[in-house]
């Protein structure tokens, strides 16, 4: 269901009115019903999986929490001595681990089966085992996001960061809250889970903030992303494997804009909807193209996934016995390497998982490993880079240096997009090579005319997208200086505020006069 469709807007309006009219105690029930209705419209098939995930993690967390409580009780009783307590703790930990492992296998097993089964059986020549005639299986809506969310809840209970939720339906609301189902963000129970069930008063400020954020997101999605989609496909999805570098670079830049606008636009719409109910969800983007390094980029891009990977993959992996032994061994090379080498290996693992999470195809794996490798190498080379800047007497705090870092990072990120977007791996390498060694600027126009066929239809889309990109760029600068765009917006006088809103509305509505068809959200496919 499109976030800007009549169906969704009607569900939202009814939910909104009911939420603030009905007694505050049942506000969360109102949201739960709305989520069921939303899911119902997207297909009852989707229900089965989310209920399975909810049941398994809810009851697993219950068991795990019981074990945690048992230990606390035993400790408080003071009956057992230190050795006995340690033994008891080990027994409980073993039991907890079994529950955790089974639940992880079950949930990730479902996700993995739906995403990867066909690819695996086809790659080992067992095509007869493939489902749906070998074509991709239709993933239940939001399965990646709520699976990760469910696992994060279970892990937090396991690590005794939070205690388990006693009310099954409140927990179900946390997993199934309708705005987040399409493409996240991946929320944490201790923040959003509690907020969802807290009573909220009607605050006009929330409504304003929510509507403005929704509008801004819609402008990004429909005026920029949807307008560019067709052109990017025309450049990369044909059989043309020797395009001039100038066209390829143009295509990758378009993709860079498209991906950010589509994903962050969708997230803004989701966050805006949540804000209408007074709920603050996990922000997922923080002006990623202003990053000064690739590591910084991943702290600003798909933030919730990055945090999830950090908390539930990176740190647990680094703290394993094997990695701790490696850390000790690397200590011989110095303090820097004792940290950087294990961290580098962990990063490679994390980004390998990020890669295959996007899809089982090789180009995603390469993209993930590329990011992991660049971050690992950058970290390892840090002392060398520091020495260079000292030798060259560069002022690393100057605007010029920061600009250099931003542009450098932008280029590095865009090199990664070659592997993300160009599905054929040899072709991605060929086109990357052409970008550097066969730029052929003179062929830019004739090649685009050949690829696009109808230029007149494209030019108005580019104009709208261009205006949208300028708006996003300027607003990002304001947001960067004010720690948030809405913070900057609130400080302006009424004329500026209204002009900003008018600009967004105008660009959005004009974009509808050049229909692009129902393209959907890119990350809804993951």
């Amino acid at each position, binding site marked *: 269901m499109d976030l800007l469709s*009549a169906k969704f807007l009607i569900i939202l309006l009814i939910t909104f009115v009911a939420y603030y009219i009905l007694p505050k105690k049942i506000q969360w029930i109102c949201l739960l019903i709305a989520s069921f209705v939303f899911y119902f419209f997207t297909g009852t098939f989707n229900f089965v999986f989310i209920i399975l995930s909810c049941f398994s993690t809810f009851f697993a967390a219950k068991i795990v929490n019981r074990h945690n409580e048992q230990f606390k009780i035993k400790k408080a009783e003071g009956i057992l001595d230190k050795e006995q307590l340690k033994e008891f703790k080990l027994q409980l930990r073993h039991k907890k681990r079994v529950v955790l492992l089974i639940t992880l296998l079950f949930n990730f097993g479902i996700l993995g089966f739906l995403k990867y089964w066909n690819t695996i059986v086809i790659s080992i020549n067992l095509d007869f085992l493939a489902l749906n005639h070998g074509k991709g299986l239709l993933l239940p809506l939001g399965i990646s996001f709520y699976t990760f969310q469910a696992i994060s809840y279970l892990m937090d209970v396991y690590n005794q960061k939070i205690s388990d939720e006693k009310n099954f339906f409140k927990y179900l609301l946390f997993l199934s809250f309708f705005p987040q189902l399409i493409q996240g963000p991946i929320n944490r129970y201790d923040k959003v889970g509690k907020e969802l069930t807290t009573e909220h008063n009607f605050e*006009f400020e929330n409504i304003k903030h929510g509507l403005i954020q929704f509008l801004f997101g819609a402008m990004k999605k429909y005026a920029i992303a949807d307008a560019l989609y067709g052109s990017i496909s025309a450049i990369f999805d*044909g*059989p*043309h*494997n*020797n*395009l*001039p570098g100038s066209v390829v670079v143009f295509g990758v830049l378009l993709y860079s804009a498209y991906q950010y606008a589509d994903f962050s636009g969708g997230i803004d719409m989701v966050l805006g909807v949540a804000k209408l109910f007074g709920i603050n969800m996990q922000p997922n983007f923080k002006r990623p193209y202003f990053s000064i390094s690739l590591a910084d980029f991943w702290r600003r891009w798909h933030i919730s996934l990055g945090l999830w990977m950090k908390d539930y993959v990176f740190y647990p992996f680094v703290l394993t016995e094997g990695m701790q032994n490696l850390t000790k061994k690397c200590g011989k090379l110095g303090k820097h390497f004792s940290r950087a080498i294990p961290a580098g290996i962990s990063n490679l693992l994390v980004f390998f998982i990020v890669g295959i999470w996007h899809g089982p195809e090789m180009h995603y794996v390469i993209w993930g490993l590329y990011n992991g490798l660049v971050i690992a190498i950058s970290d390892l080379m840090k002392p060398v880079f520091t020495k260079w800047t000292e030798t060259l007497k560069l002022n690393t705090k100057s605007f010029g240096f920061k600009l250099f870092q931003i542009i450098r990072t932008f280029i590095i990120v865009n090199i990664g997009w070659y592997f993300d977007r160009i599905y054929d791996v040899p072709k991605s390498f*060929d086109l990357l090579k052409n970008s550097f060694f066969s730029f*052929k600027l003179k*062929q830019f126009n*004739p*090649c685009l*005319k*050949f690829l696009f066929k109808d230029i007149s239809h494209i*030019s*108005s889309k*580019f*104009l*709208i997208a261009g205006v949208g990109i300028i708006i996003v760029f300027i607003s990002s600068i304001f947001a960067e200086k004010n720690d948030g765009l809405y913070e900057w917006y609130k400080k302006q006088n009424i004329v500026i505020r*209204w002009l900003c*809103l*008018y600009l967004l*509305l*105008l660009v959005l*509505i*004009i974009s*509808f*006069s*050049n*229909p692009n*068809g129902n393209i959907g959200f890119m990350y809804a496919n993951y």
Partner: protein
Amino acid sequence: MKNKIFIKVLLFFLFFFILQYFIGRILRGDYNSFARIMMQELHTDENIEVLFLGDSHIYRALDTGKFKTLTNKDCFIAGFPGEEIDATYAILKEAKYYHPEISEVFIDIDVTQLFNEDFNKRTQFKHVYACSNNLKNPKIKAEFLLNATSPYYYLNSTLEIGKNRINPKPKSMINTFKYLITGKYFKFSYPSIKNEKFEGRGYVSCSISNKKIYSENYLLQNFELEKISKDYLNTLDKIIDYCLQNNLKLTFISVPETDYTLLKQVTYDDFSKYLFTEMKEHNLNYYDLNLLKIEYLNLKSTDFYDSEHMNSKGAEKFTDAFCKLITSDSKENYFYESYEEKLSLQPEKLFGLDFIENDNGKSLELFPIGNIKTDTQISYKVFLLEDKNKIELFETQNPVIEYPVNSKGKLLVECYMNNNLQGSIEKPFYTNWIK
């Protein structure tokens, strides 16, 4: 406090509506729109007895001045480019509202329009807003807009900036702004376009004469009667009922097009017969003017300026023949039984050379369109146009021509029938992408 918020919200939307209206008018880029000028003339002209409706085919085909001379009746052509049947119905009602003296209506039926998508499936609305923007009667306008699109696009119809006329060229936007500010926009003068002249009463003459063979992407239009748009037929019924209720003498016609266009409509004769039979069942007249006998109307390719539209020479011939037809008592003698019959009586000739690019742009497949007998030998000479040089590449009878590899430029292809040159086409190509 609540009142303050309410007033603020109200003012916000009020200012927005005003702002979007002005921006929309500038973005509209219609300062030289033919529909705008034609509709203005429709509203202000006096005495219209005969009304012609249809798209660009009709307003280029009928010389309204000559019509008046030959029939002594004042006519008006209320047609604009891309006009579809629902716009025709709206304009008919508008015209009758402002000109109660209209007694006779001719509606041009373009065969291809019968297979347009249903109105609620439309996603392009250029012609919809070209019509609605220029309807003055609010009831007719509202009725038209409510049916012209699905409810999903009602916002587009309501807001000026939502209308599908965004013109990205800065020059066009500056010109619109200038025209608005200087008041020239409201003078409704037809822009001076080279080789074209607005003769008045909806007729536009063009002095360009097509001397080449036609060439387009090859697409045969194989019409299946079961796929005729239901919305089109429903709207036709509404038009018929309206004319009956308002005592309007209604006649349907199909304005002549080139043989090139007709030959690409594979089942044209089925179609023409279908329309004739359907109209007869409703006691209506339908004249397929493509079937007019050569002794009454002999149109050559030089009487057209492109594959579908007549130039001033063609319009003169057509108007002459048309006026004779409608004033004649024995109309059936004017027509062939079918287009096939008409074609069989003409000499062998190539009208056009269509093409498809195959194999992702590596080769060109040619499709000769013409009155061609089965034993006729067709051959091609292929040249590479480089700067101002014409380099002969090869001669072949194979209609599939491979482009030079890893190159870009233009090919010139000459087509011969039994070794007689019929015409040539130029085709740009780009194969540098091939590894």
